[in-house]
């Protein structure tokens, strides 16, 4: 397995592919059992986000290293309509029981680092990282 992998995301089957590859990659980085599930779940959420709001996009998965620590990074990119109000999008919609609601706030909770860039009409890029404890 190479250090970086690109997964095209356009059908719901790609969500499964992305999260399974993510799990494999995270295993290589040395993550523990429960962390593997957290990472796979976060990937599932951002991948689903691409499907729901854009025609297609891609997810880039790779091993990360910083200050002697190992980890993984996930970059989810789409050419969708973009998010007009990022702050609002990142508010928790779950506690109020709304069925609609981006899985992004949830994904952020599961990962150590979470950055989101979005431009209306251009698309969205989400970068997440998690480090081995």
């Amino acid at each position, binding site marked *: 397995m190479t250090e970086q992998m690109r997964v095209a995301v356009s059908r719901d089957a790609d969500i499964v592919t992305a999260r399974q590859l993510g799990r494999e990659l995270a295993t290589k980085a040395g993550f523990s059992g429960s962390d593997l*599930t957290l990472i796979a779940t976060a990937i599932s959420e951002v991948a689903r986000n691409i499907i729901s709001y854009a025609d297609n996009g891609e997810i880039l998965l790779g091993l990360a290293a910083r200050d002697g620590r190992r980890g993984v990074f996930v970059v989810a990119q789409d050419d969708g309509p973009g998010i007009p109000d990022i702050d609002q999008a990142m508010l928790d919609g779950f506690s109020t029981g709304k069925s609609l609601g981006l899985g992004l706030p949830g994904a952020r909770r599961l990962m150590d680092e979470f950055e989101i860039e979005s431009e209306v009409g251009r698309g969205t890029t989400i970068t997440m990282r998690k480090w081995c404890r």
Partner: protein
Amino acid sequence: MPVPILKQGEVLIASIQAALTDHDLLQLKDELADKIGRFRSRGVIIDVTALDVMDSFATRTLRGIAATARLRGAQAVVVGIQPDVAIAIVQLGLTLQGVATALDLEEGFEMLRRSMVKDGPQ
């Protein structure tokens, strides 16, 4: 890949595999709704033991399945949520409110038995 649904008396059992796509899950929802009606099932057990990830879509759909089952006179129980998955669901802030959960098939059957005894023969 469609989810296999078995019938055991008045209970339907759906065993979910790990590589479950959104499409498979939605198809399961429709099939269960259909079969509950056809077989007049009183219980539905959805076994997610093999599911390695339960994200917002999965929990939403399971809640939908339970609600649909209830409307058709059946009780749904989700069994086999694994420790790592349970932690992820909770940390994600998702809820399975309205869905009964049990440890495994045996516990699921026990739960259904108790509630069906309560309801009495129909």
